């Protein structure tokens, strides 16, 4: 078991009232799964992903990640867990504009305090693997959306996470580019990486092994 959410609630107070963003979520994810989260806009998909990714807190319930009780962990410990095991892919790529492709890839390794030579070889391997060696010195603005997202995925994977969280990774891409990214995810999944993606597309959802539907913060 990779992670498990038990009776997770998340709410905000608005006008003296509790507005629930997540309601009583129970979810167990095994290693090697490929899950698609679906639901209408505003149903809490991103919130759920952020909670799983430990970017966001929740108000009630339990969250275990690799048998560690995330909800009771200290900030620092949680950060370490997160740095080591989780990679994020965003709809709008979120590459750092001022850095080249290569430097963008290097960033998570720097924060993980990976040594210089290891960093170099990891970056080189990744560039190679994603077929973007020729683009390594370009800035994000010089790439197409599909290429940028490719870099985004590559960056999420460079520190070999166990879990990749992708929030509408193909939302800004045309269908051909989207398909390529999905193929890539499938391939990664075959190599053992666990993937949870948010998607609006039925077709993309079929790449996954399981679909979770959300409505108003509740699993249906």
């Amino acid at each position, binding site marked *: 078991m990779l992670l498990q959410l038990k009776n997770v609630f998340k709410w905000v107070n608005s006008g003296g009232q509790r507005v629930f963003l997540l309601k009583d979520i129970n979810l167990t994810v095994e290693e090697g799964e490929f899950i698609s989260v679906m639901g209408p806009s505003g149903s809490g998909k991103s919130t759920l992903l952020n909670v799983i990714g430990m*970017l*966001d807190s929740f108000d009630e319930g339990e969250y275990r990640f690799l048998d560690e009780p995330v909800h009771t962990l200290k900030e620092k410990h949680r*950060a370490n867990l997160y*740095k080591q095991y989780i990679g994020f892919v*965003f709809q709008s790529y*979120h590459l*750092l*504009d001022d850095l080249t492709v290569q430097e963008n890839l290097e960033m*998570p390794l720097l924060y993980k305090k990976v040594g210089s030579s290891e960093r170099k070889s990891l970056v080189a391997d990744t560039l190679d693997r994603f077929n973007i060696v020729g683009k390594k010195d370009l800035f994000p603005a010089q790439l197409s959306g599909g290429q940028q997202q490719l870099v985004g995925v590559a960056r999420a994977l460079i520190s070999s996470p166990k879990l990749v969280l992708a929030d509408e990774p193909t939302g800004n891409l045309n269908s051909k580019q989207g398909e390529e990214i999905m193929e890539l995810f499938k391939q990664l999944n075959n190599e053992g990486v666990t993937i949870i993606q948010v998607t609006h597309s039925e077709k993309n959802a079929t790449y996954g092994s399981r679909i979770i539907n959300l409505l108003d913060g509740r699993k249906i």
Partner: protein
Amino acid sequence: MIHNHIKIAWRNLKKQPFFTFLNTFGLAIGMAGCLLISLYIHDELSYDKMFADADRIHRVNNNIKFGGDERLFAVTPAPMAEALKNDFSEIELVTRFRTRGSALVRKADDLANVKEEQTTYVDASFFEMFGIKMLVGDAGKALTDPNTLVLTKTAAEKHFALANAVGQNLVLNNEENYTVVGVIQDFPQNSFLRDYTIFESMAGLEDASVVNWGSNNYQTFIKLIPKVKAADIQLQLRGFLGKYVIPGVQQFMPGVTEEQFKAAGNHLIFSTIPLTDIHLYSHMVAEISANNDIQSVYILSFIAIFLLLLASVNFMNLSTAYSLKRAKEVGVRKSLGSNKMELVRQFLMESGLISFLSLVLALVLAVVALPFFNTLADKDISIPFANPIFLMVLLVSVIILGLFSGSYPAFFMTRFKPVKVLKGGGGSGVGGSGIRNSLVVFQFAISVFLIVSTLVVYQQLKYIQGKDLGYSKDQILILNDVYTAGDKVTSLKDRIKQLGAVKNVTLSSFFPTPSSRSDSTFSPENGNTSQENAVSMQTWGVDYDYISTLNLELVAGRDFDRIYGSDSTAIIVNEKAVRVMELSPQEALGMQYTPDFDSENPTYYTIIGVLRDFHIASLKEDIDAVSLHLGERAYAMAIKIVAGNFANTIKDIEGVWNTIVPGEPFDYYFMEDAFNDTYVSEQRLGNIFVIFTVLSLLIACLGLFGLAAFNAEKRTKEIGIRKVLGASVGQISIKLTLDFLKLVGIAIIIAMPVGWYAMAKWLEDFSYRIDIPWWIFVLAAFLAVLISVFTVGFQSVKAAIVNPVKSLRTE
């Protein structure tokens, strides 16, 4: 339309209160500082311009090099005035001053004296020369008779009502009888006569009409006829050496010629300086009043311009930074068909509005700060709110400042491409950060420069104040006007010496303070009065306790001693004098010199001791040659007291004073203070530096703070991404702060050599000066870094703790 502009401008400013505050406050500080300095400079430049024909009045200067010593004198021989009148058709009027310092004044039938600090003899032409009108009395006839005087309103009212002032009898210094012939208005603070209250008729001063070209005691002023230039009379004035001075000298040195005089390396050059230049450009011996230095005006002008520039730069920087937030507004307006000029006008209106708000705030700040500034600068400046010209200048300056500061941001903003900014990303990619960074570097460079300067000025002052002067100035109290005790002066001295807290007492008119001057030229005994052997020395009459009271150190020979009857013709000189004589201290002992080699029967003085050199003037100047001899009536008494309760000791001394000379003013000062007074202008410079360094730092910090806030906001997305990629709060805070510190670092690198160079130049003025220590630069850099870390750090941490979920939300 303009109404609409103002309305929208006001709304925009209200929408960003933080930005508006930073901008207004920064600009206001700069304006207030600049305003105060401008008033100060205006005052400095206004000296002596109030006199009716100020532009035609000049003073005669005297540059003498004689006996190995070169000096610039503000005084000339007495007959100079008569000679000028006779020889120059270009000169309309001549008048002389013979300053005599303080005087005790009482009405003939009063007992108690009042002390007036500055009095002077003047020629009767004084009134016409300076266009001075009488409040009572007849300016046309005043001061033509001996023993008459004119006083200022303030001085007169201490004794009688103005209406019956004329004809009153006054006694000066308990022995000179004068009749009051008129009362004049007090002189303004910005005139060279500001401290003078009593003007005695020159007609009663015998020395004034003796034709003696050998002594210089008279400040001589001339008024040129209209259209004559001072330059036109210089050549003929130089001719006075051959025409008057040399023939005068020949009376006692027969056969001396101008050629010989010059061949011995001597010179004597008469020249003139315009009256209105004296205050800022004249630093001669025997100035009528203490002057300032044009250098300080330059330095202050620099600071004023810097301040305004800093504030303006701040404004540009913050405005362009914040304009990025408004990129969208510009894009929308443009796509709605607004033309460029209209946008520019809108933004200029905003900067004009801020500029105007700043002016209001600046005036408030200036009014509040004015009393402190006046104390600091030793001025009595007021803000001339009622002066329409001042208000005009203010208004025009504000408009110019607003346009200047607003122009760059306005044009910067209107350059935004609507398509680009509307597509998203706010202002990112719009650029301008290079210029903003350069502006920050510029601001900090100036701040660092000012920090370095301040530290150097203070180090130099500390050095001067701590320097071994060759005598002990600590715990020495100088009691003035002891001559009023007359014969009882010895019992005064003895009674004071008996006081428990008094260690030693000495009577003299001369102490190692800059006001003590009495130059004489000494010649050696072998009758060789040629100029090569003459030695120019200060001649100070002292008593037996002088050397021991002041802790002067003998390097050869002995002190005066009562057991030697012959000590009345003994002198003790300092090492400098011996150096000029080209002797060693040991060789000098027993040598005989005379100060009156021109007399039939010169008195020869034997050197019995040589003192280690001691400073008498400010450390800007070299040490003077000094000789001490016994005797003469003393004007003052130096009292060495033990450390501790000064107030009680002074009360005891005053008690003795009041029993021996009841009714005379008890006037004293500490030698230490007199010494420190020598450095008032440096002290003042130091204080002004501190204040304006702080102000410039404050402005720079406001700018940096605003920019950091803006930057953090602009980079929220980037910060969010970095956090998602695993960066910690600490790492991000450090990165954001370091980005700014890089700029500060560049500023430091630029400012250091400039600061070093400028301060080395400043130090050149001092004969005794520090080497600029390296730690000053380290400290300045450290301060700059520390201050910027504080300023930026807060913003950085604030930005770094934001949850990335918020900053990266796509919708």
